[in-house]
């Protein structure tokens, strides 16, 4: 019970902050146009499928 509790605290505290940092690193690519943009979600270099 104690072990499960402390593992939970680790996952929820440092773990969630690490994922948020991963998101910040990733969102730079989305909004920076490196991979795709938020209005189309497509790679700017690829033709539209529509």
């Amino acid at each position, binding site marked *: 019970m104690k072990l499960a509790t402390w593992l939970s605290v680790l*996952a929820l505290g440092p*773990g*969630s902050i690490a994922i948020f940092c991963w*998101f910040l690193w990733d969102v730079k690519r989305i909004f920076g146009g490196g*991979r795709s943009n938020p209005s189309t979600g497509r790679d700017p270099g690829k033709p539209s499928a529509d």
Partner: protein
Amino acid sequence: MAPMSGIDYSIVVLYLIGSLALGAFVSTQIKGFRDYFLAGGALTTPLLVCTLVSSYNGIDITFGTSESGFYYGVVSWWWYSLPYYVFIALAAFVVAPRLSRFEGAMTLSDILESAYGTPTRVIGAAACCIYSIPVHSMAGMMALAAYVGLSPTWSFVVAFGVCAIYTVMGGMWADVLSDTVHFVLMCVSVAIAIPMAIDWVGGWSFVEHLPTDDVTGEPVFLQHHGGLNPWMLVAWATTGLTILIEPAFYQRVFAAEDKRSVQRALLVGILLWAAYDWGVTLIGMLARAAVTQGLLPDDLEGRSALLTLCVEMLPVGLRGLMIGGIVSAAMANVDTYSLLASANVVYDIYRPVADPQASDRRLLFLTRLGVFLVMVLAAALSVMFERMRDIWQFLASIMVSVLLVPLMAALFARPRPAAGLLASVAGFAGLIAFYGYLFTQGQYMPNEEVYMVQVGPVAVWQDYAALCALPVSLAGFVLGHFLGRRGVR
């Protein structure tokens, strides 16, 4: 109750203003219905982790799981939460890859139409809509406002006014980006609250103050079965099936940049879901031990256990963070499901039935209007239910009874159109018959706070609703498949 300070209020207000700014920014990026409803299909793994965890672990889980911990102990994690992770893994590795068969699908109802035709699509969309109306989050919000000493009406108007504005403006982009903040707030606030709560009730010796079995004296709060009968445990575990028909799951799969992003996100998500559920279950148990020790009032209700404990023991600042975390859980749930319920009506029902030529612009306008109306409806309905878990079980039972059989068959087989329609109708009829029989012939059990009816030697509890309706749905499916005509897929 300890009063909220100016710092606590400032944290909550800053958070609300930030959400509005986000909605305004993202609204400039929306060009059409697909951008609005599916974020253009551009969600990456970390975004998916944040949005899946925060939108599915909304206030219903936060309050509902701690409520179960308060009343039953660790059994609620073992038999209520754990089965979800098994079904989530199944969804990630078995269901998600099958969705590529339905090219162009944006909702769960698109899959149903592809397999069974428009009538089944409409029934499925209606069930999804009922399920998605965020009644539980609204009910949780009411409890929150009352406990922090705010006017329930005004705090409600402000919190959900903000939520409505940013969701109406920004759609799924506003939803998932705000979910990243919701995600961190809710996780970190629980991570901080757990050790402080343990310390507040006197350390790990709190287990000695938990209730024991009246007859045997066994510590049922610490046993995985909680002293409950096996059928009740199976009924609890069955609610995990809802993940296989969860509209938010399908929406996020369709919105993901690729299949592997979804699978990675769900695997990481399972760890976080398990940690979060364990944390709030433990806090519910800590609140129960605090009641026994006289630290919290005797008449404390389970649904308020987490909030009361945290507000009592957290210092200024952290209390605001915790309230912000719970508001976040509510908002993450409300924005996601209001958007889904609105799209169910506009895209899944209105468009194919009433206006097949509807322009993208018209769909976008109606969906935005629908988001607002869904939130108003949810607020009105939220006063009808006494317990968070009752709301969740009722909604989950509708989804499982109506959609599980036809949807799984559509994904993994080639059923005839009549099979899907009959399975949905029969499942719903079975559920109505179950509740009708239970409420007219059964009796209310004050200790368990649910209805129960004795059928011969078997005690049938309110929790068995989906378990009883599912075989009826399956029978309808088999009948429809063998008697119906072949359809063209």
